[in-house]
């Protein structure tokens, strides 16, 4: 029940930002297959009771029918008043699945049972809330929306199927899939030997320490030193540490396809970041001065993700 970012724009206006409370008008209920089966059984039982003039047969048929009717209320109540809120969600690369966290809050005094969300079945005790993860596959860069979700239940007797749609306005960025065959373009300032892939430059070699800068990857912090109470130091690897790389539109202009170009840039950003290089990004819409670190990387990838897409998505 999720929508891809290609079709989101039509449905987006129905999405609600805040918590959604399941109200009577938004809960639909119909007899399930089992319920229809029981209706048939009841009809036969009633016919038999009439034929034999069997009062207890009538009573049993009526009791079963009444119980089915009452169970409809119980099934409806299982969904009624649930409060659904969007939790955290992390950006992903195209092709991966975005994992949306949802908080489902049961403020009532009755536990809710057997709520089915996509493939998950959950129970929520009275006056508690639980979280579930909904994964949404992505195929294109841009923004992925959680879209419309369906939640249903058949509790307690399985004779009715109650469902509701939840359309929360929550989304996350989808970065271009990091793909490409081209080597990292090394600028003139590069102190390393011209061409060649970064791996050939021995990017895994430990070079030395430098002071910690805000934005540095925590993976490269010398935690042992921190634990000993020394200053925060960054372990430098590879030969690109001091390199400054400009990733520009011109470097990918020979790739005819825009998406392929963005994928190549995306890959280069990841490579440069992992090499600890200082990289800048220059694309027609914006440009980032060479830098490194998670924040910088996210900024660059974000710019690629939203490049040349309609404003409303960003």
């Amino acid at each position, binding site marked *: 029940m999720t929508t891809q970012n290609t079709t989101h724009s039509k449905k987006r206006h129905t999405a609600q930002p805040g918590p959604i409370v399941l109200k009577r008008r938004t809960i639909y209920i119909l007899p399930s297959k089992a319920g229809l089966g029981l209706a048939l059984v009841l009809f036969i039982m009633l016919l038999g009771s009439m034929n034999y003039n069997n*009062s207890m047969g009538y009573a*049993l048929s*009526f009791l079963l029918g009444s119980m089915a009717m009452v169970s409809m*209320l119980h099934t409806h109540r299982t969904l009624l008043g649930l409060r659904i809120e969007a939790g955290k969600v992390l950006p992903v690369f195209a092709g991966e699945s975005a994992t949306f966290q949802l908080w489902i809050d049961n403020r009532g005094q009755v536990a809710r049972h057997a709520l089915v969300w996509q493939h998950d079945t959950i129970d929520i005790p009275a006056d508690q809330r639980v979280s579930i993860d909904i994964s949404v596959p992505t195929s294109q860069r841009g923004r992925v929306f959680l879209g419309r979700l369906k939640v249903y239940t058949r509790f307690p007797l399985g004779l009715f199927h109650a469902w509701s749609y939840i359309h929360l306005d929550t989304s996350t960025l989808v970065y271009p899939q990091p793909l490409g065959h081209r080597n990292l373009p090394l600028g003139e300032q590069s102190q390393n030997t011209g061409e060649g892939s970064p791996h050939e430059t021995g990017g895994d070699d430990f070079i030395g320490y430098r002071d910690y800068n805000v934005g540095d990857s925590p993976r490269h912090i010398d935690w042992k030193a921190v634990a000993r109470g020394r200053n925060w130091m960054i372990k430098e690897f590879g030969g690109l540490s001091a390199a400054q790389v400009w990733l520009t539109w011109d470097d990918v202009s020979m790739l005819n396809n825009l998406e392929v170009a963005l994928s190549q840039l995306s890959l280069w950003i990841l490579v440069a970041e992992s090499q600890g290089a200082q990289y800048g990004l220059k694309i027609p819409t914006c440009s980032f001065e060479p830098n490194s670190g998670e924040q910088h990387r996210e900024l660059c990838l974000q710019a690629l993700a939203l490049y040349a897409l309609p404003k409303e998505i960003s």
Partner: protein
Amino acid sequence: MATTQTQPQPLFPRLDTLLWLMATLILVVLPLMSRMVIWSPPLFLALLLWRYQITQKKWHLPPFWLLFIIMLVVLLGLFLTYGIRFGRDASITFLVLLCGLKLLEMKNRREFLIVCFLSYFLIITNFLYSQSIPTALYMSLVMLVATATLISLNDEKKSLSTRQRLRLSSILLMQALPVMLVLFFLFPRVAGPFWKLPIDSRTGITGLSDRMSIGDVNQLTLSDEVAFRVKGKLPPPELRYWRGPVLWWTNGREWKSGFQQDQIVNQLNIHPSGEHFDYTITLEPHYEQWLFALDLPVQAPTEGAMTADYQILAKRPVRERMRYQVRSYTHYRADFITKRQYRLALQLPQGKHPRARALAAQWRQEESHPEAVVKRALQYFNEQAFVYTYTPDLLLNDPIDEFLFETRNGFCEHYAAAFTVLMRAAGIPARIVTGYLGGNFNPIGNYLIVRQRDAHAWSEIWLPDKGWIRIDPTNAVAPIRVEQGIESALPMTFNSPLDLNILQQLANRWDAINNGWNQWILGYGPAQQREFLSRLGLKNIDWAGMTIALIIIITTLLLGYAAWMFFPQKLVRDPAQKIYLRFCQKLARQGLHRHPSEGPITYATRVSAARPDLAVPVQKIIELYVQSRYRSQFETVGELRKAVLYFR
């Protein structure tokens, strides 16, 4: 089809749900077991056990061909037991075994539901045998378990305990009960049956039959089953002869009506005299046509017609409880007899009963008047060593002669048959009348109960100047049987009169309840529904009107439930929060008010800073609170309560 699975995946359903289903099946089949062929209950239980082992030990489901073979064997067994014509017992046995076999094939939700629904069917089949109050209560219990089974199936996370499942199930049933009652009383009733009832639908029903044979049984079972109940004006006990089938034809051992039952005569020559008795009889279904009435009814009720031998016959066999009104006179002259009847009333089998014939001939010679012959015969029964017993000796060759001259013990049928033979041999037209004698008065319900054990047989002789006269030869042997009822004629079973009284009172009360149940619940049909509705002020309502009324009432009921279930979700704070608020109040009294937006941890830090002396207990309490409220560690709530209580 259930073939072997290559991958050992967990079998549907899980063990606990399976056990619920099996409990339902066993409970519902238990009362049916006595009706089933001897080999079928063990087979059914074996099938259940097999399925249990499959789930428990993760065996494979049996292959389809094996189930098919078992099925064929079952059908063959049923065929050998019941023959080609499947009646009710055979069908139910088949249904039960089908459930067992279906269990062995069950591997998904749909098949599970089929077994569930089959078990509902089996509940209803129980009601074909008994609709008594205990049965109804027992079946409510079965419904409770069956509903819990459905809940167990749908409780997919298995988070409900057995008790919670039963609780939810009883909530559903209790809520369904008022809706059911509305449906029961207002659902438009129609008179059945639509199709032919199975051939053995009257098995298990004791009652009179239209034939009787002498000397075949040496143990008469006394059934406490109610034959009918009578309300209204009644004669003294010794005159309470309830007239039933009349037997004319005999072959020396067997007696049957031998007469055109359906011959209805308009002019029956009944000349009543003296007091009349008007009363209402509520007859239990006996699947025969005759309606009982006090000897002698003057006119048939509207539901029946009177035959040429003063029997009342209903238009159709009595398949449901039936109520009718009759007027009877205990003093009458009834002298209708046709030539054919006259011949039949003197018929005796060729060459049988030589000694009885000889005795009768001797009396006829000695006495000039038929009435004197009757007196001689009664004297014979009275003076010879005749014994009234329910355990008579078997009579092998000539039942009448053996009884009259050798064994001399028997019950009413023996005496009536022997007397009638003697009369016929003496040339006096005579016939046997069967029916009931007496009955117990129930002071609580103010009615008379006549049970199967009150069944009786007597004779009628025809005298030219007096018409048909009732003669009860049993009276000559055991007059107490006639005057005080069957219990008195047999040895006492109770130890003291006190016990008898209490037990009798309890029995009366129970029967009064049963009578109400029968009249108002089991006997509720189209006629009763009309009566009930007209009492509610809904005279002349047709079925469309009833349906509309039904829909309105049920919708109102359901809306009422909805209002009750959906809205009163009063916010009750969870216990930990309540205790925390109490703690905050205690601190507030010390001047340490909590800011509205302040969380527990920041509050505790501020309090600790302001009052270092309180820091230790405050931190402890806050820690407990955070644990119980935000980390769902409910077991710490008690500790928290204690800590706050002792906090000054």
